C-alpha cells in the first residue's frame, strides 16, 4: 500500500509525524491533492489542548494548498495538474442552510482534521489530502496578479474568516476594534483597512503580535498596560467602536469586546466557543442595541473576494508568517504556536 507522511494528533498535546496510508478518491466529487504548503491555525490548538474533544489519531490541518493529482468523475471546475486552495470548511451546497447562503452552518458541516464529529476528513498537514465537494471547496490559484502561495494559502481560512467578520458590518469611516492579535485578528485588522475603516484598534497582551498590528497601520493596545475600554473610548469621542471583532474565543475576550462597542454597533465573533453558557452584561448589550454575529465562517462566500484583493496587492497576509518549518518538525511547531512563541507557522510537507 502506498503511504505518505502526515501530522497525527495521537492524543491531546501529543503530535507525531507518521507514515499513514495515502488516501484515495471514494466519491465522484472528491479531488486528490498533493499538498504544497500547509499551516497551523489557532483552531488546531483546540484539539491539541483538548478543549475540543476529538478521537485519537486524527490527521490535523485545515489550511492548505496544493496541486491536483486526480479528480473524481463528478468534478468539473478543476483538473489534474491545477493548483488550488481549499476552504477549511466543506459544505454540502444543497441543505436548508446552504440554500440560504450560510455554508458555515451547513447541516452537514465538515472540517478537515477535526475527526468524526466534522465528517471524518483527514487533515491537510500531510503529503496528500482528499478534498470532498471539490467544485465548491476549491478555488484555482490565479496565475496573474500579485500575491504568493503563502498569501493565497490563507483565503481558505484565516484571511476569509477575518475578512467576513469585518465585512458583515463595516461602513466606510468606521472605527473597528479587534480583540486578539493572533493570525485571525491580524487578518481582520488588515481587512478593516481595505474595507474602509478610518481607524483600526487591535487589543492583545503579546508585544510582538501588537507590533505586527502596528506595522499594518493599526493602533495597538496592550491590555496588560492599558484598559482597552478606556483606550477605545478615548479614540472615538467616548462613543465606542462601530464594529468589534472577538478574534480570540475566550470568555475574557468576549467580555472585553462587550465593553468596546458603541450603542447600535456590532460585535462579530469568529473566535470559537463551545461552552454550555457564558455570563454576559446583557442589560448593557440590550440597552445599547448591539448586534452580535458569530459562528463558523462562511469561507466559500469570501474566497473569491479575498483572492482578488490579494491579486490586486491589497491584502498580503503572508506578512504574518513568523516561522517556516519542514512538516517533519510539526511537534516542535505546535509547541511553539501553543506557547505564543510564533505568530503563524507554515509547514512544508515536501521537506
Amino acid at each position, binding site marked *: 500500500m502506498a503511504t505518505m507522511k502526515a501530522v497525527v494528533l495521537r492524543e491531546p498535546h501529543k503530535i507525531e509525524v507518521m507514515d499513514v496510508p495515502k488516501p484515495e478518491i471514494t466519491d465522484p466529487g472528491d479531488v486528490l491533492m498533493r499538498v504544497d504548503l500547509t499551516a497551523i491555525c489557532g483552531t488546531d490548538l483546540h484539539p491539541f489542548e483538548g478543549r475540543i*474533544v*476529538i*478521537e*485519537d489519531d486524527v490527521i490535523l490541518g485545515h489550511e492548505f494548498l496544493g496541486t491536483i493529482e486526480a479528480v473524481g468523475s463528478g468534478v468539473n471546475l478543476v483538473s489534474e495538474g491545477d493548483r488550488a486552495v481549499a476552504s477549511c470548511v466543506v459544505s*454540502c451546497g*444543497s*441543505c436548508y442552510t446552504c440554500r440560504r447562503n450560510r455554508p458555515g452552518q*451547513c*447541516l*452537514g*458541516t*465538515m472540517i478537515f482534521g477535526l*475527526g*468524526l*464529529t*466534522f*465528517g*471524518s476528513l483527514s487533515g491537510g498537514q500531510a503529503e496528500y489530502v482528499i478534498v470532498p465537494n471539490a467544485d465548491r471547496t476549491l478555488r484555482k490559484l490565479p496565475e496573474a496578479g500579485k500575491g504568493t502561495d503563502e498569501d493565497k494559502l490563507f483565503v481558505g481560512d484565516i484571511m476569509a474568516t477575518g475578512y467576513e467578520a469585518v465585512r458583515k458590518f463595516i461602513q466606510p469611516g468606521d472605527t473597528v476594534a479587534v480583540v486578539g492579535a493572533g493570525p485571525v485578528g491580524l487578518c481582520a485588522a488588515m481587512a478593516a483597512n481595505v474595507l474602509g475603516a478610518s481607524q483600526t484598534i487591535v487589543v492583545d497582551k503579546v508585544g510582538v503580535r501588537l507590533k505586527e498590528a502596528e506595522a499594518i497601520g493599526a493602533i495597538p493596545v496592550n491590555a496588560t498596560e492599558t484598559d482597552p475600554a478606556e483606550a477605545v473610548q478615548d479614540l472615538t469621542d467616548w462613543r465606542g467602536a462601530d464594529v468589534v471583532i472577538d478574534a480570540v474565543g475566550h470568555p475574557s475576550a468576549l467580555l472585553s469586546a462587550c465593553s468596546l462597542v458603541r450603542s447600535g454597533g456590532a460585535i462579530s465573533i469568529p473566535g470559537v466557543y*463551545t*461552552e*454550555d453558557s457564558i455570563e454576559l452584561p446583557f442589560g448593557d448589550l440590550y440597552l445599547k442595541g448591539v448586534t452580535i454575529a458569530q459562528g463558523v465562517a462562511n469561507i466559500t462566500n469570501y474566497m473569491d473576494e479575498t483572492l482578488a484583493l490579494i491579486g490586486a496587492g491589497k491584502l498580503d497576509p503572508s506578512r504574518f508568517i513568523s516561522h517556516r518549518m519542514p512538516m517533519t518538525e510539526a511537534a516542535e511547531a505546535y509547541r511553539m504556536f501553543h506557547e505564543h512563541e510564533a505568530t503563524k507557522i507554515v509547514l512544508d510537507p515536501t521537506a
Partner: protein
Amino acid sequence: MAYFADSNEVDKYIGGVFRAANDHAESGPKMRAAGLNLRVLYTDPDTEMWVKMHEPAMEVHTGADDDKADITLMMRADTGDKFWRGDYNLAVGLAKGEVKAKGPVNKILKLVPLTKPLFPMYRDLVADKDAQSA
C-alpha cells in the same frame, strides 16, 4: 430488508453497545460525566431508546419514558447500525436529513467522538447476528 427484525434486536445490539460503554475505560466515564438524557427515535423497526448518561452508571432502555430528553435524534435503525460499524458519515447524514437532531449542538458535538472507540465493541456484538444471516 431492514437489518433488525424488531425493537428487541435494536435494544439488544444498539442498546447493547451503550450498556457496554459503561465498562469502556475511556468513553464510559466521559459519557457518564456528560449528565445527559439522550433519546433516539429509530424507525424500521420503530424503537424509542433512552440512554441516561449519568453517574454511577448509564441506564439504557427502550420504550417511552416521562423524563425530559436533553438530546433527541431520529434515524432509521439501519442508519444506527451503519454508524456503529463505523460505516456511516454522520455529517453527510445530517445534511441529507437522514439523521435529525434536537438539542444543544455543542453537547451533541462533544458526544460524537466518544462513540468511535466503541465501534469495535459493536462489531463484536453483531458478529453472532451477522454469522446467522450469512
